[in-house]
């Protein structure tokens, strides 16, 4: 990649890694949450729904701050993880966590809509035709909601690629460590003469966003 400086290339690679990890790690939990919200009646359903949507409602900076409080080295979960050798704050893993949490509402919503669009009669018909619960899910439900799963993942990935506020607040903007694409663009704009670097990264961002 001759037309990208190492620093720029680092930001692109990091962003891709962060976003892919964020999307794939969130996928099973997202599907489970979407299914639970769409199909199950349980106490606390409304609370779960609110919780999932929280990152959409709160300012990203606030979400990042709350992540810092919780998962920072001195935070309740963060200190625990730190003892187990996992550090999130100011690491790329933290950026992935922030991206996953910011993309989670979008992912869950798309999946939930696709699950709600499945006529329960289709699953009931399969049951009366001799299909067990597992086979009903695999042969009927899953193929029907696949477009929703895909759409949700793409939305989450795109959100992760563009996420800035929560990331910069939670893991800061350390080149090669936590400097994702948007952080890098921002950083280049602060430095005199950085406009051309910023422009190149903007173009990459736009291409990725349009592709997704």
């Amino acid at each position: 990649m001759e037309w990208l400086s190492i620093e720029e290339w680092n930001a692109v690679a990091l962003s891709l890694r962060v976003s892919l990890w964020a999307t794939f790690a969130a996928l099973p939990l997202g599907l489970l949450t979407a299914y639970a919200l769409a199909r199950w009646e349980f106490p606390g359903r409304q609370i779960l729904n609110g919780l999932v949507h929280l990152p959409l409602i709160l300012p990203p900076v606030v979400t990042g701050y709350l992540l810092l409080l919780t998962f920072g080295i001195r935070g309740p979960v963060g200190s625990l993880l730190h003892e187990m050798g996992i550090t999130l704050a100011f690491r790329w893993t933290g950026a992935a966590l922030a991206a996953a949490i910011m993309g989670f509402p979008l992912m869950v919503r798309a999946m939930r809509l696709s699950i709600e669009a499945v006529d329960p009669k289709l699953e009931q018909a399969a049951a009366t035709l001799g299909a067990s619960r597992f086979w009903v899910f695999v042969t009927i439900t899953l193929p029907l909601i696949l477009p929703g799963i895909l759409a949700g993942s793409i939305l989450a990935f795109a959100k992760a690629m563009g996420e800035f506020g929560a990331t910069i607040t939670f893991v800061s903007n350390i080149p090669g460590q936590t400097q994702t694409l948007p952080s890098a663009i921002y950083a280049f704009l602060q430095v005199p003469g950085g406009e051309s670097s910023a422009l190149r990264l903007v173009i990459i961002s736009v291409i990725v966003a349009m592709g997704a």
Partner: protein
Amino acid sequence: MSGVTLTQAVKKYGDTQVIHNVDLQIDEGEFCVFVGPSGCGKSTLLRMIAGLEETSAGQIDIGARDVTHMDASDRGVAMVFQTYALYPHMTVEENMGFGLKMNGVPKAEIKAKVGEASRILKLDDYLKRKPKALSGGQRQRVAIGRAIVRGPEVFLFDEPLSNLDAELRVDMRVEIARLHKDIGATMIYVTHDQVEAMTLADKIVVLRAGRIEQVGSPMQLYKDPDNRFVAGFIGSPSMNFLNGVVEGGKVRIPDLNRVIEANVTLPGEGKPVLVGVRPQHIRVSEQGDDLTLDIRERLGGVAYDYLLTKNGDKITVETDSDEEIDEGSTVTIEFDLENTMFFDGETEQRLR
């Protein structure tokens, strides 16, 4: 193939009881129709037999097996839904073979059975299509085919013709009747349409508010209903009910200013009774002024006269005569005792 037996079957949603201690015996090979107005519990009862609703109390047997708490997939039934419930991501062929595939039948055998069913249902040309490329009637045939191929002990139909238009409904009704004649399987069929019930059933179960009102063959229910509800529900147009009062061992009908004989055991003097006469058994006569001829509807072969009593109650009369009594004329009606039924005015039970 097997019969189905319900013993004191009960369904509750929370504190609301929707099915009240239903006892019912459906014989092997019988075509049994559950009929009743919407909300009577007919679909719920079917879904309890299918295993799609839990049974709150009582027992359900299919053949010799107690299936009360068995999973739907283990009951050996196949259900046809009003909305077809075809799998949009599978071809007609795959839809029809689904039941066998789930039961681990080899591919060649599935193909043979699907081919046989598609021949009977005239679906050969559509096997490779997806359901969305089919018309409503074709979709319903695929849904029926899917159930046939599965080879169930009991077929369950939940208002399968309600989404079709009137003309197609008659055709499909005849096809389902022929299907039952051909394969002779036990079938349970839910509908709100008394015409479907009359034409298809060996045995009709009339339901109201989660209770069985009467069980019997179509002509039994038509000719010998147990109560006012069944008498009014079966037959088209509905039976007319005139208010009467017991008077000296006879029945006085104030609306007609007339006292008629009754060859049944009447309740005590002064008690209310209902006099039931079907529209086909009434003649309109100009020799009286008890009633007004409000509206006449002509349908070509047949005509309906709607009469009003002085209280504004409606009496329907079916005539095929071309006789012309003007709308708005004052008239009266005649009917024979042999075509008249009497019901207790309080319990609404038939008096015999």
